[in-house]
């Protein structure tokens, strides 16, 4: 991968580290997506608490919790649901370190950057002044930044718990409970399948190209290459579509979609549903208590 770095000696000043060209960066991106999907399938097959529940219960329950987080009007509720999410992750044998490295850190980096200026510009009660710059940090600013970050972290954890603890085929099947039309569910399922075909095609294309690159790619050249790669992928997907259609037709596809409904609610599932909904309801109620915020914030 690094052979391209050494061959470019045109620039006079010695370069510290060559920037990865867009081919490598795209490859890294594609592989990261494949990896996270594989990781999800891996954890979904473990024998944990959430994995054993009916997918419909998980969708309804986790969605109710996500809704409770977005509705909350004080910290305490958000932290409470985050703790619930952590507990669920531990009981479902989701490795927390991977979750932290993959999700929490990247959300913190993104949302944290966005939230940082807020602590200075929100008008309100001053709590601290930066020594040199004389910028004032306000209590309201801190609160607001905390809301944004904690909400983003909690909701992303909850939504990932669903895919980390459920096989994607089951997620799709369970979507019909939420009245998503069957044709959409089938499209979603096929899309998910073909994403991997496409990711692999793109990966092969870029690897083939990367292995032929000597030296740095000029800007115009790389833009042409990017556009051509997308164009090739587009043509390929068009042919793929025709082939899939013929294959579907040859198996008797007439436009109607049927699917087997093999879920059955056990006692455990009903119990879990009740627990989920009561936690969510408790959080709804806690979230509306403005006085709780005043009481708990020193």
């Amino acid at each position, binding site marked *: 991968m690094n052979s391209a770095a050494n061959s470019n000696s045109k620039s006079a000043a010695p370069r510290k580290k060559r920037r990865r060209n867009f081919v490598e960066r795209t490859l890294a991106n594609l592989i990261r997506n494949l990896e996270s999907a594989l990781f999800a399938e891996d954890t979904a097959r473990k024998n944990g608490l959430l994995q054993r529940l009916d997918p419909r219960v998980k969708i309804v329950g986790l969605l109710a919790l996500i809704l409770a987080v977005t509705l909350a009007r004080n910290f305490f509720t958000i932290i409470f649901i985050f703790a619930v999410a952590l507990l669920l992750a531990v009981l479902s044998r989701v490795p927390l370190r991977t979750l932290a490295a993959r999700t929490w850190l990247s959300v913190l980096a993104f949302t944290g950057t966005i939230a940082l200026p807020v602590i200075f510009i929100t008008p309100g009660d001053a709590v601290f002044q930066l020594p040199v710059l004389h910028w004032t940090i306000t209590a309201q*600013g801190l609160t607001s930044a905390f*809301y944004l970050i904690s909400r983003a972290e909690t909701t992303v954890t909850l939504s990932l718990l669903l895919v980390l603890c459920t096989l994607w085929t089951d997620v799709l099947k369970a979507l019909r409970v939420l009245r998503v039309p069957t044709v959409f569910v089938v499209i979603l399922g096929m*899309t*998910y*399948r073909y994403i991997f075909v496409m990711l692999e095609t793109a990966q092969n294309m870029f690897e083939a190209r990367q292995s032929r690159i000597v030296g740095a790619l000029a*800007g115009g050249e790389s833009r042409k290459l*990017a*556009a051509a790669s997308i164009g090739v992928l587009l043509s390929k997907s068009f042919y793929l579509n025709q082939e899939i259609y013929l294959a579907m037709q040859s198996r008797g596809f007439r436009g109607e979609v049927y699917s087997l409904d093999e879920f059955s609610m056990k006692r455990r599932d009903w119990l879990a549903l009740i627990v989920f909904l009561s936690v969510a309801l408790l959080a709804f109620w806690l979230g509306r208590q403005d006085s709780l915020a005043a009481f708990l914030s020193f």
Partner: protein
Amino acid sequence: MHIPDGYLSPITCAVLYAASAPFWWFALRRVKRLLNTKLVPLLSVFAAFSFVIMMFNIPLPGGTTGHAVGVGIAAIVLGTWGSMLAISVALLIQALFFGDGGITAFGANCFNMAIVGSLVASAVYRTVANRAAITSTRRVVAAALAGYAAINAAAFCASIEFGIQPLLFQDASGAPLYAPYPLSIAIPAMMIGHITVAGLAELITAGGVVAYLQRSDPSLLRFTAPDAPDENELVEKGGWRSTRPLWIGLAALMILTPLGLLTAGTAWGEWSAEDFADSKTREEIAAASLNQAPPEAPPAGLERLSSVWTAPIPDYAPPFLQSEQFGYIMSAIFGTGLIIAFFLLCGWIARRFSRDNREVSPTVSGNE
């Protein structure tokens, strides 16, 4: 661009879900009627395609890279409604399976990128490309502009959604509960990033892919341009002719610009620092602002910033011209000329970008 959960209030999310629903319903009906049984595989494959190109790093001038949503190219190949559905499905998979973009914010993301993006991209592409030949350079320019306009329209919608949050939703102490920045910060912050980096990525993707398809697979461009001629020669003759009414209209507007002198008062909000000192202008400002008296001294920031940039043609009339009317017309011609020159430059760059398509096209174009 993918709004995560927690940035928008549940009510905003609900409103945007409701706003998206009729578009989805209508798009599904349209596409179903057109494709019948082909709907399922076509949408699936193109949604997968949209998903994958969102992962691509598009190299930008200056050595950086950016991500494109691909709504421009989707709208050109699949048409408005197909693109709406394909991008929505791709966004749903991102939200559900990859934690990219929120689940409660899914309606908002679809509204911005899939719906507004597709509508804007189609409108711009169809207007600019008009009836140009499938392999003409004009289609490349049209596609590039379509992608650029679409992503900026989407970013603008998102920035408004962000900007209204602190106005509407605060906790007991007055701290914003969701996205904390007011419109005055959210709009410039979002737009600067999209007018430059993200917009360019989309521009390069849409324009570049159309240029590539013109020489490798022009049949894919047929769907949104069924009656466009194949050959380039037709374009040389009449490609721009149909824009003639637009040119005439533009000229008429330029000549009519001195009409602005007939209106009373100053444009609201376009006051200069001196206007606050002049008693006559102060009355005008007060009359135009529900009889609110303007502040005694010009705002400090206005005074400071007004010295930063001095326009070459102040108040539309250069000092050496005695006639104000003539000054207005000159300014209009000069300003319009600058804008046209800018777009000609864009066109020239796009032509360079697709130059080698000419060398191949005689054998490829028109066969499919």
